[in-house]
């Protein structure tokens, strides 16, 4: 083969190959689109929400409008729930309140020996003088409860089967109030890790 005919021979060979494989190109565009679509991550509702708020130029005002409307909807939902759903009452019931009045901080242990007692609780200015029950799980007559309290001064008394007992041996002091004794506990003293 002469070198002058080489180019022509190569062209013919390539043309023949393309003609042979031409049917493979049928529907190629559609297959590519399908393939790309399959490889794209699936968009869930959260992705749609993100897309809605995607900050692109020119639509910021619209985005703020959507944002405001969303906030308004949440607010109205809150109003509706507060007004119409009984369980949405924010004011806690008495037992919950006892827990809520305890602040993060020192867990203070209250201990009351009361053998044979049926009902022992502690009342004080940390729980609005509402009874917080003590427990005697092993039945040894030693009733206890731990209440988280923030640093400060607290007055309290135990109530044993309905009778007030304001002289806790573990108290830091005692005061008279309404003619009876209250125990006083200072919470947060250095070295007080009860």
């Amino acid at each position: 083969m002469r070198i002058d005919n080489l180019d022509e021979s190569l062209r013919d060979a390539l043309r023949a190959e393309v003609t042979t494989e031409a049917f493979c190109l049928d529907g190629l565009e559609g297959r590519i689109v399908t393939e790309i679509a399959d490889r794209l991550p699936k968009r869930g509702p959260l992705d749609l929400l993100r897309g809605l708020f995607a900050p692109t130029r020119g639509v910021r005002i619209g985005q703020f409008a959507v944002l405001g409307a969303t906030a308004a909807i949440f607010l109205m939902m809150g109003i509706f729930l507060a007004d119409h759903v009984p369980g949405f009452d924010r004011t806690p019931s008495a037992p919950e309140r006892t827990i809520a009045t305890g602040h993060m901080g020192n867990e203070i242990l209250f201990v009351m020996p009361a053998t044979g007692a049926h009902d022992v609780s502690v009342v004080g200015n940390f729980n609005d003088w509402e009874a917080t029950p003590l427990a005697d799980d092993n039945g040894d007559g030693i009733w206890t409860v731990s209440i988280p309290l923030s640093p400060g001064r607290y007055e309290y008394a135990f109530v044993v089967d309905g009778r007030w007992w304001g002289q806790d041996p573990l108290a830091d002091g005692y005061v008279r109030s309404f003619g009876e004794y209250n125990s006083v506990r200072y919470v947060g003293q250095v070295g007080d890790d009860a």
Partner: protein
Amino acid sequence: MRDPRRAFTLVLILGFFISGVSTLALATSHAEVNQALSVLCPTSDPEIMAALEVGFAQGRIEPDEILHLIRRLSTVQGVPAEKETILLTIAHALQDDLPVKILVDKVEEGLARNIPLTVILNGSGSQPRILGLVQRASLLEAVRDFLYSKRIFSAPEGTKAVSTCLPNAHFDCLVSEIAGSLADYLEGGGSPLEGYLMFQQVSLRLQTLAGLREPPLLAEDVDLVLERLTPTDLTNIVLAVL
């Protein structure tokens, strides 16, 4: 989340939601107080509510606390006029720019102990002495005025004009603790003429509170008061109230 602007938007939405619900909760609580008050004190509830609103804004009383008291007052037996007077006394204390948590707490304790409303309100002169709400409010006022006379003032946080100007919360705490200590001394049978004993009791209480971790009172505030307070001053304060 790769795009920080999207993250910011989502945080903003959550912020709107949380602030909306918080505002709503607060507003509802005020409405609950108002409603409970109008049932218990139909004649004077606007006056009391106006004072309470000031107290809420100043952080001197929380809606939940006063609502608890109103509900408790509603359930106990007693003359309606006395229940109203108890709430009016607290309202007047707020109008007089006094801390009231100590008053609310004492009423709560009295109600829990089933003390008659008239004793809670007016106390008892017989032994053991019981200070009523009216006397306790007067004691708060006398202590506050004494501190003013010694040029110890209160101011909102961050607006300290002079070195003896304490933040409102600290000043309220000082007034409450001094008055509370004096009331405990008197109910414990102490004589108002023994100013030195009262001074010991007051200084011990203030210094103990200042010595706590995360103390409600600062040591320098306590030192400032104790430098300017004498046993005679305490006797004068107490005698003016009794």
